[in-house]
Every structure is written in structure tokens, then in C-alpha cells.
């Protein structure tokens, strides 16, 4: 956790009070919560009333997707990208399995991007029956940044609420709720140096998804449950710090990431880079609201590769044994690694999907880490190839 978040949280852990209470301790705690709300709103281009605290990203995704679906019944269609995190895919799938929803997965191109025309065509098949559209801001596996603003505008042509899971984007990319035009945006604390178990759904005024959990109605009558004020204070500190440092961090990470990609390519010539090929140098810029918005095609700390002939799990094990930590990015289904649905959606075959690894750089990453990776990678790849695809 960021020191700022630890400090903010630690101070509040020593206080008593329930932010919903009317007595002095309650009022004091409410002030902490409301100031945190204002901090987050300010950092992310939202109004304080648009911040709905949740227990994290999964809850926020569930609230947006299920909540909009229920609120807009009898509409049945749920349009969601095929590369979503399971926190968004699975609630949609549940709606299909048990609530009568017609879930349609939006196709992506070979870089993992949902094209606005894809969404427009999907909506056009029966616009009046679409309950909600959900497309993530940036992909957690291959790092591809989605054209969220254009997609939201397409949904709004038909008055359809648009949700985006921005868990990966906050702190890595410039995120403005207002400028993006989305109706609901998911963020979570632990991805930005904040506490685990604290997150929020930014929810535009006038949008009222049906609650997933009912009770005291603490958060705009949309989300119930006693607020975890210390965690919220930690979340606010983390959001504030992460957004403040985003530009400098992104620049540093993107350049380190570009170096990593070049050196991995040199070390393993037949490696395939997955996701958006553009590097930090190929950013498209647009000015809006007086603030220059730089939107690269890929998360600055993300590098994702397929190593032909290797099994990702074997490579991960070999690299881990050498002190390099990476991820296969594949979901574990029944304890056994499954080929990533993201890579499959991008057109990869199952073998290529299984032979893939993600390297994520964060604020503690240095050139030494890249040196270490390049030092051990060729031998690990060779060995994993010999072990074959099991």
C-alpha cells in the first residue's frame, strides 16, 4: 500500500463511530467519509454525489450490470465485451442463466479492441431491447485500452446506460468520469496502492440501478451496508496520490515497458506481442476541457507475449524459480488453468493462448528487473519448449 493510504487508514482505525449515526462520533466519521468522497470525485472528474462506495471492483461491476438490467426490464439484451474480467462477465452470464437476459458478447479485433461500429451494429439489431452496455476501460490481461468515450456515445444514441470497468485504468491512464461520458465506472483500491476490500462505482446522477444488496440504503439507496470508513479514507488517499502521480509514472513505465518488449523480442525472436502494438510514442492526443488528454493504446505497465511451443504455466514456474514474477493471466477454472478467454476472443488458438505470459510493471519496477528477466528468459523458454505443451 502507498504510505499515504496506510497513514490515512491507520488514523481512522483508531477512531470510533459509524458514519450513519447521528451522535458526535458518527458525525465525525461521516465527515471522513464525505471528504473521501469529495477527494475521489475531484481526482476522477466526478461529482461527490456520483461516488458510491462498495467493497471493491467485483461488487461495483455486479451492481452496475445486474442493477441496470433489473432497472430497465423488460429489456433483455445485455451487450458486454468478450474480453471483460470475470467480475463483469460472470454477473452477465448469471443474468442469462437465471434472469432471462440475452447476453451478447461484443467481438474484438486482433488487438482486443471493441470497435464502435461493432457496438453500433449490435445495438441496431434491436435497440429498444438493450438494457445495458458494459465495456472495460482497459484490459487486465493484454492491456488494450478501449475507445470508451466513443462507445459510450454510441450507447447514448439510443439512451442506453453504459458501464465501464476502469479497475486497471485508474492510476495508469488519465480517467475523467465526466469527459468519458459513461454512466457508471468501476474502480478498486488495491490496484492503486490502496486497501483491499474498498472500491467504488462512480454513478452518474439520475441513474438508479436496482440494488444488489438491500438494507440501510447508505449509499444513495443503491448500496446498503455500514461503510468501512477507515478503508474509504485509505482508498481516497490512494486515488488522490495515484492520479497525481499518474502522468509521471505512466511515462516512466511506458518507456521501461517498451525497453522490455524490445529486449524480449531480441532474446526470443519468435515471441509474439499480444494486444495493441502501439508504444508510448504512438499516443493519440486530444484536447478536452482545457486539459491535454493522452490516451495510449495500451496500459503503460503491460507487456503480454505468446511464446510459441511453451506452456505458460511451465514458463511461469521456471521464471518464478529464478525470482521473476509474472502471470499467465488465465483464469483458473476448477483449479486447472484454462486458455485465456481474452486471447481466444482476439483470435488466438488454444495452444498460443496457453503459451502466454503477462509481465506487469508497477511503481516499484526498475531496469534491474528487466535485466534480470532478460538474463533468465532464454534458458527458461528453451526448457519450457523441451517440456512441450504437456
Amino acid at each position, binding site marked *: 500500500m502507498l504510505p499515504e493510504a496506510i497513514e490515512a487508514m491507520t488514523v481512522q482505525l483508531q477512531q470510533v463511530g459509524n458514519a450513519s449515526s447521528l451522535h458526535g462520533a458518527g458525525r465525525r466519521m461521516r465527515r471522513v467519509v464525505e471528504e473521501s468522497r469529495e477527494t475521489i470525485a475531484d481526482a476522477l472528474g466526478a461529482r461527490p454525489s456520483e461516488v458510491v462506495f462498495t467493497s471493491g471492483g467485483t461488487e461495483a461491476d455486479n451492481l452496475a450490470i445486474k442493477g441496470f438490467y433489473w432497472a430497465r426490464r423488460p429489456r433483455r439484451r445485455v451487450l458486454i465485451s468478450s474480453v471483460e474480467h470475470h467480475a463483469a462477465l460472470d454477473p452477465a452470464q448469471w443474468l442469462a442463466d437465471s434472469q432471462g437476459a440475452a447476453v451478447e458478447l461484443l467481438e474484438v479485433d486482433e488487438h482486443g479492441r471493441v470497435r464502435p461500429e461493432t457496438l453500433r451494429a449490435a445495438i441496431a439489431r434491436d435497440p429498444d431491447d438493450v438494457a445495458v452496455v458494459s465495456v472495460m476501460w482497459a484490459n487486465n490481461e493484454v492491456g488494450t485500452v478501449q475507445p470508451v468515450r466513443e462507445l459510450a456515445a454510441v450507447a447514448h444514441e439510443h439512451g442506453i446506460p453504459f458501464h465501464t470497468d476502469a479497475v486497471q485504468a485508474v492510476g495508469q491512464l488519465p480517467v475523467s468520469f465526466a469527459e468519458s461520458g459513461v454512466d457508471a465506472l468501476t474502480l478498486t483500491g488495491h490496484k492503486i496502492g490502496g486497501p483491499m476490500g474498498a472500491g467504488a462505482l462512480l454513478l452518474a446522477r439520475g441513474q438508479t440501478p436496482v440494488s444488489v444488496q438491500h438494507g440501510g440504503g447508505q449509499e444513495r439507496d443503491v448500496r446498503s451496508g455500514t461503510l468501512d470508513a477507515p478503508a474509504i479514507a485509505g482508498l481516497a488517499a490512494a486515488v488522490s496520490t495515484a492520479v497525481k502521480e499518474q502522468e509521471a509514472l505512466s511515462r516512466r513505465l511506458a518507456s521501461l515497458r517498451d525497453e522490455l518488449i524490445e529486449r524480449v523480442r531480441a532474446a526470443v525472436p519468435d515471441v509474439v506481442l499480444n494486444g495493441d502494438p502501439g508504444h508510448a510514442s504512438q499516443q493519440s492526443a486530444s484536447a478536452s476541457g482545457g486539459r491535454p488528454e493522452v490516451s495510449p493504446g495500451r496500459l503503460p505497465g503491460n507487456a503480454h507475449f505468446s511464446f510459441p511451443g511453451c506452456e505458460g*504455466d*511451465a514458463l511461469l*514456474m*521456471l521464471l*518464478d*524459480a529464478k525470482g521473476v514474477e509474472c502471470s499467465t493471466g488465465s483464469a*483458473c477454472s*476448477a*483449479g*486447472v*488453468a484454462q486458455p485465456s478467454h481474452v486471447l481466444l476472443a482476439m483470435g488466438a488458438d488454444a495452444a498460443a493462448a496457453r503459451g502466454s505470459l503477462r509481465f506487469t510493471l508497477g511503481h516499484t519496477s526498475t531496469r534491474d528487473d528487466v535485466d534480470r528477466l532478460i538474463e533468465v528468459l532464454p534458458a527458461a523458454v528453451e*526448457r*519450457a519448449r*523441451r*517440456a*512441450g505443451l*504437456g
Partner: protein
Amino acid sequence: MGLRVLAAMSGGVDSAVAAARIAEAGHDVTGVHLALSANPQSHRTGARGCCTIEDSRDARRAADVIGIPFYIWDMAERFQRDVIEDFVSEYAAGRTPNPCLRCNEKIKFSAVLDRALALGFDAVATGHHARLVDGVLSRSADQGKDQSYVLGVLTREQLGHAIFPLGDSTKAEVREEAARRGLTVADKPDSHDICFIADGDTRGFLSERLGAAEGPIVDQEGAVVGSHQGAHGFTIGQRKGLRIDRPAPDGRPRYVLSIEPVSNTVTVGPRAALEVTSITCGAPVWNGPSRFDDLTVQLRAHGEVYGCRFEEAGGGLRIDLDRPATGVAAGQAAVLYSGATVIGSATILSAS
């Protein structure tokens, strides 16, 4: 620097303690749970099954306590092909396979070992109750739990890359040690039966795959004394579940003497007719010392041992027993011991 060891961790107490012991001995240990079922059940019911999600979590929890890296390897396809399909086709051919033995031979010390060696490991360790000293396999200190029989089919090469850290311990000692080490699987029930037949209904499992076909149950003279729903549901020496209405003329119980899959005929007769003294086997695997005395043979898992002599003939092995054995089934392994030491094995083809 010790060896790089892959510890196969089922989620049970034995493999957890085995992994802990080799890690403590200074080896570089990585825990691997073998996912053997394509559609695992979420949790165990009783003592059956060995590859549920709960088991894989138990294995991971044990690895965390021991402090070793842990991975899950998907071996479901290989297991399906080399163990389950083999099991079904052996029954279809009228033989009685031992799937645990096949799993050791084809999965743990073949597919897993090969992959481990390719990835730079030196050896595979398991929680089997058997001794292995300098590549020589012998019986466990715990006679009741001894698993040297189901390992007796391994070649010298396979044994050369195996480690069985529990050979000198009893099961009770292993459980006690697990508790002392804070391994929460200490009280987990032992697994029995066939892991991929979760409900224990082997006959039902086979009928589902081989179909039910009514056939006769005949006595030694060929007289039809009953009927059955598929010869694959029977094992040589089986007494229960024959469902013959008429008692034998002498009033004594009848046993399955032979199974004829082609004519779908099961022959039954008195216990005396089950007795055999001469066993014909396929090609032997010699994996122990070449000099031995006190020669015995074990003809099924947890079965009795018999004093014997053997001779190699025509690429196979003929074993003559000192006294008659019953319930000797084709498809089982004959494992030869010199005292407690395994010297080799061969698959039983027929007995008389």
C-alpha cells in the same frame, strides 16, 4: 545444494508429509497437484475420489505451510487415455486391471516424471508407503499400508528418479507428524477404492461405458445356472453378487472361475476350482537386485505372498507357486520379492 524435487501432492496427508520431509532435508522442492479429472467434483464425499477441487486446495494449503511453490498440472487427458480407458478396455477383454498401478506406471513416473525432467527437476517424490534406497524398492515399515506392489511395475530408470520419503514410517507416525507440522490434512480420511469412480460403483461405471448385455452364468460342466448383465462386471474369485437362485448340488458357495468376454459367459464353480499353482505372465520388468533368495510373489494389491520359483520363457515369465493360490486374475501384476525387496514384476496372462 540438494536436488530439485517435484513433490506430487494429492491433497492427502501422506504426500504432504513426504513433501515436508524432503524440503526439510534441504532439497529444492516444488509442489505439484495433478488434476486428473476434466470435470472435478467440488468436494470429497467420504474416502472416495482423489482429485476434487477441495483436494487441490488442501494440497495448496499444505504447500503454503511447508513454504514451497505450488502448481497444478493438468494431466486429465493423459489420465483419461492411459488409466481410465485402459481400465475399461481391460475389463472388456475379461481381465482385471489395477488402475493405481497403471497410474504410477503411465502418469506419475512417466508423463509427470518426463515433464519434470524436461523442466530441470532431478526427481519426483510421492507419499507412497514403500522404501526406496539406492534405487532398490522394498516394502514399507507399515506392513498394512505397504504400496510396493503398485510400484513394482516401475523400471530401474523410473525408480532412479523417484523418492519415497515415507518408507520407514507407519501411517500413524505420518499422521502424528502432519499434526506436529501444522498440516491441516493430518486427520483427512485415507483414500480407498478407485479414485475416478466417485460413488464406488465399479460395475455401474463399466456398464455405462461397455453397455449391458445379458449373458449366461454356467457351471464347470457348462450347465446354465443363471444370467448376468455383462461379463465385465465380474472378477475372478468373486463370490458376492452372482445372484444365482439355485444352490450348487453340494450346497457350497460358488465363485467366478473365468470370464469369457467374446461369448459373454461367466463360469462359476467351487472354491477348490479356483486354486492355481502355475502362472503365466507377460514380459517381466527387472528392477531390483539380480541376486536374491527367499523368493516370494504377490498376486494382487494387499494380497498374500507365496513362495515360488520362476523361469523366463518365450519373452514371458512362468511362476510356480509352492502352494495353491485362489482368485488369480489376468491383468493383475505378479510382483516378485526377495524377502522385503522387490526384484521385478510381470502382468498375469493366465493361471492353472
